[in-house]
């Protein structure tokens, strides 16, 4: 007879244990600092260069730009999630998790909850900086809360996609730099920094369907008395991408190569 102690670990406990560990990893890597430094620099630079120009076109850039910077930050949070999980894959830790009795969703979920926390902190830092230069939530607390929730939700959804990539990757540096290009294209070919009519006509349809445009537009609508029609597309994107990336992340963990 074997001396097996049949231990049935609850998924909840596994989730809590791993989330605590990931939080520690994030803090050790000073990941929040790194994900806000670049957007803050960008923010300062764009404000200095474009604020006067944009006001000539009737755009209050201090109100227009911060949602874009928030989206930039959330994308960077997601990319660093990919970096961290790819590091765990490289060290063999993920393989060990795969041989343990764990549900396929525990590892990605424990990753995402920490990414949500990181995104919340990063968004808060950006918003403080924005308020200092004149950004205001003009539509009340409820819409402001919606703003933050949507921003964090977007970060989590992107992070799920990045985690799926990272789980399959062997080299954190490589996969991170591979993500830089889509990141740059998606943030610039969107309504993040200029309105859609500033783009050449042939590019405007692309800008309009971009999930990044939908996200930025929704955040702008939530920070002011914007129309609710501006918010819905972002929510639809969030749901669709969330499902897609969520399934991809779980499959990527329990993938039989």
């Amino acid at each position, binding site marked *: 007879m*074997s001396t*097996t*102690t*049949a231990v049935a670990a609850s998924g909840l406990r596994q989730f809590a244990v791993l989330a605590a*560990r990931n939080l520690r990893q994030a803090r050790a890597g000073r990941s929040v600092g790194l994900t806000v430094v670049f957007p803050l620099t960008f923010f300062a630079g764009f404000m200095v260069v474009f604020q006067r120009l944009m006001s000539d076109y009737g755009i209050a850039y201090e109100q227009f730009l911060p949602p874009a910077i928030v989206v930039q930050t959330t994308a960077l949070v997601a990319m660093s999630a990919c970096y961290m999980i790819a590091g765990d894959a490289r*060290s063999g830790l993920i393989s060990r998790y795969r*041989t343990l*009795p764990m549900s396929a969703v525990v590892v990605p979920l424990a990753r995402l909850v920490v990414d949500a926390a990181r995104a919340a902190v990063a968004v808060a830092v950006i918003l403080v900086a924005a308020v200092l230069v004149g950004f205001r939530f003009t539509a009340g607390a409820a819409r402001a809360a919606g703003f933050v929730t949507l921003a964090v939700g977007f970060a989590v959804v992107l992070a799920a996609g990045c985690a799926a990539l990272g789980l399959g990757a062997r080299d954190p540096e490589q996969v991170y730099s591979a993500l830089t290009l889509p990141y740059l294209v998606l943030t610039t070919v969107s309504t993040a920094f200029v309105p859609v009519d500033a783009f050449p006509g042939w590019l405007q349809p692309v800008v309009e369907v971009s999930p990044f445009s939908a996200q930025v537009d929704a955040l702008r609508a939530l920070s002011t008395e914007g129309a609710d029609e501006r918010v819905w597309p972002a929510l639809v994107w969030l749901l669709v991408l969330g499902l897609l990336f969520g399934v991809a992340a779980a499959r990527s963990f329990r993938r*039989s190569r």
Partner: protein
Amino acid sequence: MSQQLIQVSDLRRSFGATAAVDGVSFEVAAGEVVGLLGPNGAGKTTTIHCLTTLLKPDSGTARVAGFDVVTQGAEVRRSIAVTGQFAALDELLTGRENLVLFGRLLGLGRQPATARADELIDRFDLGEVAGKAVRTYSGGLRRRLDLAASLVVDRPVLILDEPTTGLDPRSRRALWEVVRELRDGGTAVLLTTQYLEEADQLAGRVLLIDRGRVSAEGTPDELKRQLGGAVCEVRIEDPRARTVAAEQLRAAFDGLTEDEDVLRLAAGSGTLTEVVRRLESAGVEADDVTVRRPTLDEVFLSLTGSVDAEKAVDADAAGAGR
């Protein structure tokens, strides 16, 4: 007691056009250690990956603790302790924290997990480094901690993929001791190794794996016998005396080989007496005369290499650096 805890039947797995595992079958019973022995790329690790649910086999079946690795992956994972080829640890955490982490992931409460961690730290002699971050550990320390981490909870099946690669002799022996204890406690142990000594020391049964197939199977003694029995070695340092002795022995035995100051020939019953008698009558004083079984190295080379069985002894001596 003879419950088969690992049952592998005609397992196959290819990567593209390469058949990494090409029809492997074997069983491991409770309380038994089976060694998969073979060179790099022989298919050992692929076999292990199939058994630990990391890979899906193309065909054939594999059952662990009675559960099918494809359709009952979750049950299989609840029955195995695994140490992979690379130390899979959290670099950021200390050794103790790693053990507690895995204990908690496996369902132990905080207190039991900590107690178990301390027990394992003692058993694997990690006391001095348990409080340091794993990224500061040497390769040997990592392997030890890694093995400890896979033993946090008792499982009926222990699977070790090259567990002592990179370990110093002392740690290797300590690990062997642990494996023997677990075996005696009824655990079924499957291990892969490139070290013949390790298979010889630990495994009740050895499977020689070569290019995805089992090329020989048996107890270490049986495998050694397959090589053709014992070897008689006569060591004579004086080259002139050695030449004389070689002539004398050649007259009586086939297949005498010379290797530096050693004359070697296949030994049957009465060989030793005949050798001594002939040396005496030739007036040659040998520095040493021994009869020994072939080493597992010799078996290994003869069965997996391009070297045929008769020449294996020479080949091994020539490649003694391995």
